[in-house]
């Protein structure tokens, strides 16, 4: 598989590590890679073209500041330009000045509208709202039933006067829903509609009729994060048909880069407001567009990782760790401690997936939390002296450790070897100042 954009750019610029200004030739070489990265992330090819044009304009002649390599400089510009397009921060859901607020969900078949409706309703409950789910998908067999079951799970009432499965009038249901909300004191209506194709004029007219009936505050287009080039056509058609006000990006928990979000934002100007990231009803949250930039470029979601780390990692311990790192007095004991901290941050595969450049390397490699368990067992089978100074590990000690931890001597050897290598790298890092470290972690 392909490397992350930053790796590829590093390769290109490996020989051009000078200062001065970025030349046209340098920029063009870099932009070829940027273009590939964006296309591989499913950004629409026309959007890519415009985007690359804008970056080129900015990058040629740009001064390469002393602290950055040319590659980092280009990435910085690309990243800034991405954020300028996607938006700086989350755009919140708009509520009607006079309740009820009506949120209409629309989208293609299978984009995840019904599930998303329930997730949104549950999210609204956590924000102290009183939502009502409205079942206007009368097309797909058992869609109404699905919403009822999900409503039950989310503890949100469902307005479903029709059984659906091809019968009933969704516009009438939509009309009834407003009255029902007023009657039962519900302040947000979440309206689920049938999936429809961008080219299906009849169904699009029906969506418009539902919209006219409920007068929504928000019309949210549910888009599958795995969508390819077609995202543009879909978004434009729905914008024309029902005047979309925002987007929900669904199924973002897979390994798709989610370039569709950039395409949609570029051609419609509508922001992504929410993202769904799992099969549980709670896997739904406000979307942070700036964080998608790194993902589109294959650079991991460092901000989320940092946020999670801040929540779980003990501050004092981290400071202690930093000091040890600086003095290169890092022992197996610290390594064990480190592992346990990382474990608290979530499943290993998820945590690693968020690190820049890591998701690609991990493809194919099976990461398992049981690997951590094994490493823990090995270290815990060592004496304090051995943990502090692995050099004293001779053959018989290793054999004892293997027996004690239920592993093999080879596995113990491998761990010690890896630890040695890690320590060597840390020594190099220790030479850097915190600013530089920070940049490595934060720039992308």
């Amino acid at each position: 598989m392909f490397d992350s954009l930053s790796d590829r750019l590093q390769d290109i610029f490996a020989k051009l590590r000078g200062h001065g200004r970025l030349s046209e030739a340098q920029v063009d070489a870099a932009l070829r890679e940027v273009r590939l990265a964006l296309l591989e992330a499913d950004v629409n090819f026309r959007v890519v073209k415009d985007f690359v044009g804008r970056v080129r304009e900015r990058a040629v002649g740009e001064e390469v500041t002393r602290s950055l390599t040319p590659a980092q400089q280009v990435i910085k510009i690309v990243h800034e330009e991405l954020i300028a397009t996607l938006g700086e921060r989350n755009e919140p859901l708009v509520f009607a000045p006079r309740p009820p607020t009506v949120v209409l969900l629309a989208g293609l078949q299978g984009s995840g509208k019904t599930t998303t409706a329930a997730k949104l309703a549950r999210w609204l409950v956590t924000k102290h709202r009183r939502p009502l789910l409205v079942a206007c998908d009368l097309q797909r067999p058992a869609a109404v039933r699905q919403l009822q079951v999900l409503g039950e799970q989310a503890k949100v009432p469902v307005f479903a006067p029709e059984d659906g499965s091809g019968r009933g009038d969704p516009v009438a249901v939509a009309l009834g829903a407003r009255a029902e909300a007023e009657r039962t004191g519900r302040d947000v209506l979440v309206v689920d509609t049938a999936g429809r194709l961008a080219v299906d004029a009849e169904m699009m007219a029906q969506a418009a009729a539902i919209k006219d009936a409920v007068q929504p505050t928000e019309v949210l287009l549910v888009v599958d994060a795995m969508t390819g080039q077609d995202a543009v056509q879909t978004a434009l058609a729905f914008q024309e048909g029902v005047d979309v006000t925002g987007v929900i990006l669904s199924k973002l928990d897979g390994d798709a880069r989610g370039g569709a979000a950039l395409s949609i934002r570029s051609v419609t100007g509508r922001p992504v407001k929410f993202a769904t990231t799992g099969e549980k009803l709670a896997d739904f949250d406000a979307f942070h567009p700036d964080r998608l930039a790194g993902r589109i470029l294959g650079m991991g979601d460092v901000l989320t990782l940092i946020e999670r780390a801040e929540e779980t990692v003990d501050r004092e311990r981290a400071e202690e760790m930093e000091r040890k790192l600086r003095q290169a007095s890092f022992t197996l004991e610290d390594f064990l401690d480190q592992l346990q901290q990382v474990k608290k941050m979530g499943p290993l595969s998820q945590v690693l997936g968020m690190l820049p450049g890591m998701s690609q390397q991990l493809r194919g490699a099976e990461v398992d939390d049981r690997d951590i368990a094994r490493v823990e067992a090995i270290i815990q089978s060592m004496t304090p002296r051995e943990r502090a100074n692995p050099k004293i590990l001779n053959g018989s000690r290793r054999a004892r450790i293997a027996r004690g931890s239920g592993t093999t001597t080879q596995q113990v050897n491998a761990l010690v070897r890896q630890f040695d290598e890690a320590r060597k790298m840390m020594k190099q890092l220790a030479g850097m100042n915190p600013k530089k470290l920070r940049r490595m972690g934060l720039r992308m």
Partner: protein
Amino acid sequence: MVVAVLVVAAIALVPLVRGRRGADSRPPAVLDREPGVGDDPGSPPAQARPVTEVALPDELGQPGGARTIEADEAEVEEIAPRRRFRERLGRSRSAFSRGLAGLLARGADDESAWEELEEALLAADVGVATTTELIERLRRRAKAGAADLRELLRAELLDAVGSDDRSLDLDLIPAAERPGVVLVVGVNGTGKTTTCGKLALALSEEGKQTVLAAADTFRAAATEQLVLWGERVGAQVVRHQQGADPAAVAFDALASARAKHADVLLVDTAGRLHTKTNLMEELRKVRRVLEREGGPLREVLLVLDATTGQNGLAQAKQFTETVGVTGLVLTKLDGTAKGGIVVAVQRELGIPVKLVGLGEGAHDLAPFDPEAFVDALLAEDASAR
């Protein structure tokens, strides 16, 4: 400071992972595992059944030569008339290959014409790697003075889509091997349940008795959806409660289908992202149980949504690795999406498209027609420009 911790974590973990990948002589620890990271509410922990041998994909589902060919021609006609595909795609077909027309008019050394051609392929989700290679080959042949570029590109694409056997391996099943089992898999929302329903109808119209297994026990009301399809097409549906072990549903459905001397068992499974290890393990178990009880599967169909972009390749790879996909069903091809990712899937993994979904009607499932597909791929949508 936190960053420093992360950097250390990264450094510490990378070798860990790498070390594992380049694993040594350690005996393969592929024990029958509990599903790993417990992050899914709906999947009951897999019981540690002893691993019987898991057959490799190559060993199964390969249609055994001549015996299927004539019969399948007939089947192809019966699922839905062939013209359906062309009819449905006709709307965009009239504008066939403006890019190519431009190329012919302006000559092969016009760079912007080549660019247009490249964009047409990219716009269809064919993917950068495949597009670049196709264009390179075409350029070489154009330089060599080949005559008709339009025909050449069509030929290249047809070649890329492949000419594998696209028929379902469901005809002339010996009585002892009945029912022929078809496992339907894919990520969430691609149209697995709908495909099962439509396929059941097509098979029953061919006179094959079909049983449906509602092994999607996770999604709310997925079973009801399949039951409604079963009523519509007159096929029996074997179901359990929501949250039940899908492998148990498959097991019961197979026993039931066998008792009824049914010809085909269609197993609908829950949508799952290919990145979720525990859910993929659950699917592996479904397959294992079906094979242990009923011998090799006839078909494992991966349902791909035509709107899917480059992630489709990752999906196909992972599902193939887990359950040995034998064919693709490309759904929602009646929209504006071209489904070009299947070109990449065919090229990289050699998995042919067998069926296409062309609409919401019960009859809107058609055999794949490579020529119509390629023509539509190159046609420019009026809405796109």
